[in-house]
């Protein structure tokens, strides 16, 4: 990997980790009600965001993201402060105007469709954007991600089935980020195999598995999978094994749970390669920490929704 890219990935990973930790601190300080996010998924989610064909409309990629994807949209260019705004529930929250939980993303100008708390429904809405892209042609694809526990839902099977119908194959990149646990239930209690990507086999869907704690391996796996979906206009199921460093959400305390830390592993690797010293890494962490401190102070000054905001945007009205 080009050293410049390797260092850029690292920078966004730090930005993302620091943002998630700032979100947790905000929640604990009473500046937000609930935290859910994806610290531990940066090594996979950042390359994903950097590889997206970003734009509006079916010529570009659609993203059906679950709630552990802040690193992906930050890699696309979302400012950390916008994620803090959603935690604070300000009216300036660009994703939901103070209406939805942290990490429930919506960015129309980049085809990031509404994120929801309903597990796995994103796998069926992805069918529709991919259907339009199949008709549109070009290289735009639909990317959908979710966790391992959610694959038990029927919507996951629906995505496999609909996207692989003979002659009607859809350009969908299905991603499962496998952290081995659903809230408190270990995957081994509820699934017969950790190789969830093999569920693609009976549908004839190409599939793969990658160490999602390794950003360079993730980059390569995503590049390969995306190239296939973009050119062949067929689905691909990619499993990325990742960590869940702060638990499911604030409902379980948002405290460190252990497991492999992709960021510290990556920093050790970059040090071995002579690309980044521990001191330089520490400076990057401090830069983002300071950036987020300022951003939190800014967000705390921003306006909250009012009573009147309850009743806006129930129905869309086209401009006259």
């Amino acid at each position, binding site marked *: 990997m080009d050293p410049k890219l390797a260092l850029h990935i690292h920078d966004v990973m730090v930005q993302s980790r620091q943002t998630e930790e700032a979100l947790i601190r905000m929640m604990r300080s009473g500046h937000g009600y609930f935290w859910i996010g994806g610290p531990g998924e940066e090594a996979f989610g950042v390359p994903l965001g950097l590889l997206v064909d970003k734009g509006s409309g079916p010529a570009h990629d659609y993203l059906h993201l679950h709630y552990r994807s802040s690193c992906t949209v930050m890699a696309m260019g979302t400012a950390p402060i916008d994620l803090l705004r959603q935690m604070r529930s300000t009216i300036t929250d660009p994703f939901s105007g103070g209406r939805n939980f942290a990490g429930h993303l919506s960015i129309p100008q980049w085809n990031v469709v509404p994120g929801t708390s309903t597990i796995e429904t994103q796998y069926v809405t992805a069918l*529709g954007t991919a259907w339009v892209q199949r008709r549109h042609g070009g290289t735009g694809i639909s990317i959908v991600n979710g966790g391992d526990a959610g694959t038990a839902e029927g919507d996951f099977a629906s995505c496999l089935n609909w996207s692989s119908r003979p002659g009607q194959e859809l350009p969908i990149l299905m991603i499962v980020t496998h952290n081995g646990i659903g809230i408190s239930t270990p995957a081994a209690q509820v699934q017969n195999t950790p190789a969830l990507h093999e569920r693609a086999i009976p549908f004839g869907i190409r599939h793969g598995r990658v160490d999602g704690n390794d950003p360079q391996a993730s980059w390569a796996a995503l590049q390969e999978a995306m190239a296939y979906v973009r050119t062949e206009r067929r689905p691909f199921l990619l499993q990325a094994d990742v960590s869940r460093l702060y638990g499911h959400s604030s409902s379980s305390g948002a405290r460190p749970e252990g497991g492999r830390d992709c960021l510290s592993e990556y920093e050790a690797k970059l040090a071995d390669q002579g690309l980044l010293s521990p001191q330089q890494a520490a400076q990057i962490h401090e830069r983002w920490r300071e950036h987020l401190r300022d951003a939190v102070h800014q967000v705390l000054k921003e306006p909250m929704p009012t009573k009147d905001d309850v009743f806006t945007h129930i*129905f869309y009205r086209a401009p006259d």
Partner: protein
Amino acid sequence: MANLAQAIRLALHYGETHLGVTDIFGEDVGPPLGGVFTATQGLTKTWNTPLDERGILGMAMGIALAGGKPVAEIQFCDYMFNALDLMKLAGNAHWTTNGGWHLPMVVMTPVGAGIHGSIYHSHSIESIATHLPGWKIVMPSNAKDAYGLLISAIQDPNPVLYMAPKALLRVKGDELIPGEPADERELHRRIDAPLGDRSGWTPNWPPVTDFSVPIGEAKVCRTGDRVTVVGYGHLLPACVRAADVLAQEGIACEVIDLRTLIPFDLPTLQRSLDKTGRLLLVNEDTEVTNFGEHLLRKLVERCFYSLQVPPVLLAGADVPGVGLAWELERHSVPQEEDILAAMRKLATAGE
């Protein structure tokens, strides 16, 4: 005159040729069948889906998010229950994103009893559907409205649930749809697929227009000053016939076809009730937390001092299903004689 199924087909034809409908899909919606009620025969944008209601609704949402204009069908509303969270998501996407996204999509589904449909082909779903904010919800009771409401649903930039009363799908209208041939045999020859092999058949569509019935506008079907009767869908024609019987007895009842459930036409209902002081609400959904109860509450709040007698809701029995045997269905779902009796009783109550 066209029947409701033909009217729906004509509106979809207009939608796919003039209003930008990109996809009309559902189970058995495309060739060779063209819909279990024939409502999608001969159209060009139709296709068949897997037997997967959640997939159908997700597909519709995704198409709408990507700039398409989908019309999805759930073959019977009885099979929508396993997909209600997707309905909820479609309805709330505009609000939850603070106006960031909107979903221009139509979901059609046959509803109600009246075809000996037994437990899982007789459900009504309006009481549940009207609990899904962000959806507009319409239900025609005649072919012309079926056409006009579907045109409006397609033109609307929001999710619209189009409920088709299945007991009326074969019922012919008494008003021509603009552009419809006056001779119904000609219409049949032009747009009804032949039985058997249809592979060589193509329809010869009549020149239908953009005639529409505005969403949110009720229709006063009979005028009167004695009782206000509010219905929609399947039981509305029975309300009209009952009013005609009473009119011959000198009792003038005002029958209002709600046509749109969300957002409903409260001013028209209020004007009528202020005039008559007597209210009968009629529908076939089960009575507990029935949509009619919401109408009742709104009208009592606004017209309390106009009421001369307690208002009445005539609805389906609160039982787990509509049984197949006729006596079971007959006593589960209001029938024409029940409506007539209720109207007569209200007309003379308090005297």
